[in-house]
């Protein structure tokens, strides 16, 4: 059982596969149209940035201190203030999600502040139904409060040691535009769609249409059949990746600090894994529908959930964290985020490359094992 490859036969099969891809509208849709659409949606739709969060402010006190605080809030670049005189109204807005938090400055605020016994309180209510936004909002309001405190302290010539705070300095992605870290990750999702989902249909389709049977009765070898599926879809995936990277860097202003050839290597290895998985499903199930379902569950869902693309792996419970090591997308996303935003940081990249290589060999190897020269399996 050697790996016998006749070049002319292989070339003929690759050519056949490529022509089929080009002439099938659903392939073009999935390989080119959907990725660009998804890239835009991922890039602009999932925006975790420090945007202006809507905050409702109810000022029941007409005193100077209260007004001052309200002004500081309004001056924050991260907060969009909505004023309302009535607390119940604001509560309703909060419940409806029109504002993501509300600040109440009670009528005795200024008086208590002047008394200086520390009893003055600013009530902040956040919408806990959006925990992420609530966190951010809490932080922003804290920030505004710090500013207000330090302004007061300076005006009154008070010691400022209580004003100690942490100054943030961002390395990589200094503008903290979440797009810069989401888009590289989303490339892995897009490549999974092509690599696993599209190919999962391919072999099964040949079985269902009866062309596989005809092929197997010719002198072609298993290696030739497999390679003729892998090569065109690999090229397709890389073309899609190139397009995504160009769109990301040219139209979406996502920086790419790392080198192109490493990007190429990492993508190739990931493609190998995805293709292996997709072809395995297709070969084993011989049914397009079941294979596609399998690809969704085994490749696509993990690529979104478990790759670290949006959701932080460290925050997951330990068993789930361990499970992510089985997901090739995890290594790919890690490598991509570093390559794009940081550059060629070798310790990170080498580990990911090594694991991707392992993964690709595993899935492709398994597929090779499961491909049969006969209708009834090995």
């Amino acid at each position, binding site marked *: 059982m050697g790996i016998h490859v006749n070049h002319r036969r292989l070339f003929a099969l690759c050519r056949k596969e490529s022509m089929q891809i080009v002439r099938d509208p659903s392939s073009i849709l999935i390989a080119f149209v959907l990725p660009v659409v998804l890239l835009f949606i991922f890039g602009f739709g999932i925006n975790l940035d420090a945007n202006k969060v809507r905050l409702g402010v109810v000022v029941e006190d007409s005193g100077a201190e209260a007004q001052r605080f309200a002004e500081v809030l309004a001056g924050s670049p991260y907060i969009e203030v909505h004023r309302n005189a009535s607390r119940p109204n604001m509560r309703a807005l909060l419940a409806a999600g029109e504002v993501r938090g509300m600040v109440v400055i009670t009528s005795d605020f200024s008086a208590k502040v002047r008394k200086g016994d520390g009893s003055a309180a600013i009530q902040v209510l956040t919408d806990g139904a959006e925990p992420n936004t609530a966190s951010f909002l809490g932080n922003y309001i804290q920030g505004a409060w710090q500013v207000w405190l330090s302004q007061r302290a300076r005006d009154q010539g008070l010691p400022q040691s209580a004003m100690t705070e942490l100054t943030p300095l961002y390395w990589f992605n200094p503008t903290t535009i979440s797009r810069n870290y989401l888009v590289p990750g989303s490339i892995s999702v897009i490549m999974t769609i092509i690599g696993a989902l599209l190919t999962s249909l391919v072999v099964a389709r040949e079985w269902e249409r009866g*062309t596989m049977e005809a092929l197997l009765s010719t002198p072609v070898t298993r290696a030739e059949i497999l390679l003729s599926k892998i090569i065109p879809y690999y090229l397709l995936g890389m073309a899609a990746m190139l397009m995504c990277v160009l769109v990301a860097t040219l139209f979406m202003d996502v920086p790419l600090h790392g080198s192109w050839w490493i990007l190429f290597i990492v993508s190739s290895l990931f493609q190998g894994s995805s293709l292996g998985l997709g072809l395995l499903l297709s070969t084993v199930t011989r049914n397009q529908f079941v294979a596609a379902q399998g690809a969704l569950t085994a490749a696509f869902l993990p690529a979104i959930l478990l790759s670290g693309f949006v959701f932080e792996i460290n925050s997951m419970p330990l068993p789930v964290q361990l499970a992510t090591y089985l997901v090739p997308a995890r290594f790919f996303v890690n490598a991509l985020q570093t390559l794009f935003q940081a550059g060629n940081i070798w310790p990170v990249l080498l580990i990911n490359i090594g694991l991707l290589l392992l993964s690709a060999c595993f899935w492709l190897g398994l597929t090779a094992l499961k491909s049969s020269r006969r209708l009834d399996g090995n």
Partner: protein
Amino acid sequence: MDNGIAIAIRGLEQRFADQIALHGLDADIHRGSITGLVGPDGAGKTTLMRLIAGLLKPTGGEIRVENLDSINDADALHMLLGYMPQKFGLYEDLTVQENLDLYADLRSVFGEQRQQSFTKLLAFTDLARFTDRPAGKLSGGMKQKLGLACTLLGSPRVLLLDEPSVGVDPISRRELWRMVGELAVSGMTVVWSTSYLDEAELCEAVLLMNAGKLEYSGPPAQLIDTMRGRSVQLRNIAGNHRQVLQRALRQPEIIDGVIQGRALRLVLRNAGQYPDMKGLEAGHDALLVDVTPRLEDAFIDILGGGPGGDSVLAAHMPEAKLPADVDVDAVISAKSLTRRFGDFIATDNVNFQVRRGEIFGLLGPNGAGKSTTFKMMCGLLSPSEGRASVMGIDLKHSASTARRQLGYMAQKFALYGNLTVAQNLEFFSGIYGLRGEHQRETINDMIRVFSLQPYLGKLAGELPLGFKQRLALSCAIMHQPPLLFLDEPTSGVDPITRREFWTHINGLVEKGVTVMVTTHFMDEAEYCDRIGLVYRGRMIAIGTPDSIKQQASRTEEIDITMEEAFIRLVQNDDQSREIVS
């Protein structure tokens, strides 16, 4: 092994997970001959072919092809084998030339030899004009020819063809035969599988299979010879020939009978023992004439004789009722019926009328337009021009009222494969408005009539073909429709199931049901009262089977086959089209 045997099969048994596909086969296939592998769907023909091609591993016994073991020497085997599966193995998105190029490359046919092969094959298949057309856009016959051409590249020594002529127009079928015949002369061993028994008669040897068993192996002529003196035709029948058939089948001397136009073809139990003419009540002029036996007669004999002529189903059904204001002569009517798909005219100005209690057949090859016409008559498609009406109701406008009166059996018996037999029966009766006690009674009747009891809990998709057909028929008639539309109802079934089916149809027709049926099987056309020949969208002839045969006959010819008549009429039509254009 060189005593001229190309393929040696010994004790071959093939078992799949839940069934035995082949029961201990022994056969020898000679080199340079065309061997017919004959039998209905489910007989095991495809399984046997796949085993010979080395695509399946035998669970018992062995196969040697040109002295190569089908499994251990698979690589060498693929070098000298050509295999055309049922779906032809064509890539629909690729053009004719691209398909040929692919297979030429796969079989390492290069250079001078390649060019010569292409030229020869394109000429043979008459596809030279279509080299740039995608394979998916070819007609059925053209696809089959292309499939054969691709299989022939590389000049294989053994050629395996799985049902290459199913559904193809008779002219293309003859051409396929011609192509293959010429090849066999040059030393190629051909195994041609088919469910058409008349095709099998042309082979040098046949392997007759049924339900996984090999019933006969040898020259067809030999088998036919055993039937000598047992095939007769009853001619000049006066009165209702269907009723005469019923009476004939009740006679103990007769084991099988079918309608042939106005005559009946009967098979005797023993040579020379004729039935009592009085009992047949066929009229004064009726006479029994000896005719040459067919392979089908022998096959029926092997299987133990045909089914009886009395339909339990029909006995069960009430007289078909039509609303009073319906024109009895035009229960189904098509006027100037035309249907276009873009530039392509699928149905071109078709006219016909069907009387109450008549069986009207649309006959023609796949792609001729009979399905399109048929669908317009059922209300599934709306005509581009013209009028399709059923019981006087124009289907374009108020289909719903008409539908309750229709029974429809779709091609390949569209049943819900993942529901049980019982669930299918409940569903189809339910959507036609049967409920409560009446529904339950009707379903129980069907179960009894068609002997479905042991299969009630089985999934419809897993039924043997014959039972699928029965289930489909029962689902179509539970609401007692006065009109029945049957789309290729017997494609692929064994002759006995086919006869059984037609017994039911005949019985229903006796009760006044009007039947419209489509078929590509020429013999089946003879069971109809009148037929319309459809070719390339037009109805090129319409009338009783006998009148059409007469139309196509030259003077002094007595008895041409339906197929021959069809071919001649088609050729006439082609000529007249050329003159016009």
